[in-house]
């Protein structure tokens, strides 16, 4: 048995830490991100559309929607997270085995979206209040292309390089510093 971490947020250092080996496993992780079959609201319809004929997420090896959370790598939070659903969502996230990624799809999952108004009582305003989120995909609901772009962003996050050509009509991203910057508290959002 591996030693237990002191508190839940502590991350133990890897036992084998070889750069080529890590790179090899990272490539494989990026190339087969299996999402969990988990849809909350109308964005889930777009999640279904992205696996269908016109957009076809399976080209990038991510069409294996696993019904069991134990076999999944990527949780797409597609839609409005109500306070009723929040404990289930957190539980699902905690049950997911270790290399795990979360994509917040749609405005509701990012910030509460149209449900964010004074006096609302039932909606969690942003899924990042509950679980750490890797990629935010805006839209109400986001188009399937946007969800694909979100998948590419997660792949870019795993590997450090973008694998697929950037569409021409998108603005070029700001030049990134070579070294990974210290995580700053997000302003606004």
């Amino acid at each position, binding site marked *: 048995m591996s030693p237990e971490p002191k508190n839940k947020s502590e991350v133990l250092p890897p036992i084998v830490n070889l750069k080529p080996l890590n790179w090899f496993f990272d490539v494989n992780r990026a190339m087969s991100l299996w999402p969990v*079959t988990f849809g909350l609201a109308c964005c889930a319809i777009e999640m279904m559309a992205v696996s269908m004929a016109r957009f076809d997420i*399976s080209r990038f090896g991510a069409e294996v929607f696993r*019904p069991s959370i134990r076999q999944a790598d990527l949780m797409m939070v597609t839609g409005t997270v109500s306070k009723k659903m929040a404990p289930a969502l957190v539980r699902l996230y905690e049950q997911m085995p270790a290399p795990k990624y979360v994509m917040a799809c749609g405005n509701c999952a990012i910030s509460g979206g149209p449900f964010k108004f004074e006096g609302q009582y039932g909606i969690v305003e942003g899924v990042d209040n509950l679980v750490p989120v890797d990629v935010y995909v805006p839209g109400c609901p986001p188009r399937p292309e946007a969800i694909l772009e979100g998948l590419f962003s997660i792949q870019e996050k795993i590997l450090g390089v973008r694998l697929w050509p950037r569409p021409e009509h998108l603005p070029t991203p700001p030049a990134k510093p070579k070294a990974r910057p210290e995580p700053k508290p997000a302003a606004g959002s």
Partner: protein
Amino acid sequence: MDLSIANFAQIIIACLLVIALMVGNAVVMVYVERKACGFIQRRPGPYEVGPRGILQAVCDSMKLLGKQIYVPGNIDWILYFLAPVLAFFPVLLLYLPIPFGRHLTAMNVDEGILLILAFSGLGVVSNILAGWASNNKYGILGAARAVSQAVAYEIPMIMALLAIVFLTGSLSLTEIVERQGSWPWQWNIVVQPLAFFIYLVSLVGETNRAPFDLPEAESELTAGFHTEYSGMGFALFFLSEYANMLLVSFVCAAFFLGGYKGPFMDGFWWMFIKAYAVMVFIVWIRWTFPRVRFDQLLNINWRWLLPLSILNLWVTAVIVRFI
């Protein structure tokens, strides 16, 4: 069969080859299955990982290797870790009597088909253990379904194979292949079309493939008996599923489709071509038919396949005895 050193070495080499075949088959079939699924649904399928996506299955297996092995609470430790191993290794034994050529058999036993049918039950035991040990209600339900389905579908399967055994008078797979000719009209499928059909239906039920994949029905039981398995445990179940598919396809080829005999030139390539044709057929019906309900599944078996197979066996027995 005497266990001389030569025989022993032969079996060891055969086991290594069979492991290589099982792993290679799983890698190829994952790719073929996802591609075929894509083509049936009018989309390209895996495309970007390697040229035309051929590295997709490799990436998947390596990712599963690097995944955290999640151990749920309150499990039966021994059974939980034994079940995936038990799903994988008995299949090794089942490949030994399969004839790939007149003398190209790992272990040429006279009761080859008896060995295969007897030990294929161990696969179900692993499913029960997996469902039971993982302390999960979906797991237990999946295990219960796996048992009743396997018990039900084994009977017409054996009856269909028994009809061929009656015709040939031998339980040895090599002997059964030798009694068939090289050309398609000399194969057993022409003499026993009903037995072939019954075997084809029940092999889908026996290997837990859609439309008969009730033990892991995603819409009802999260993932059935392997709900709680992550990483390599799940990969071993996957591997054994494809290995079982290949095994029943080999038996189908040997019994009904002339085995290693084929037009123009006999040889092991015919065995592989026929077996993979059956495999592609299984994949094809998986992505074409919706899943049946559990009562429908059992009705198909007990009301249609079993009486038909008994009838087929009777007629065959009478013909063999009196004509």
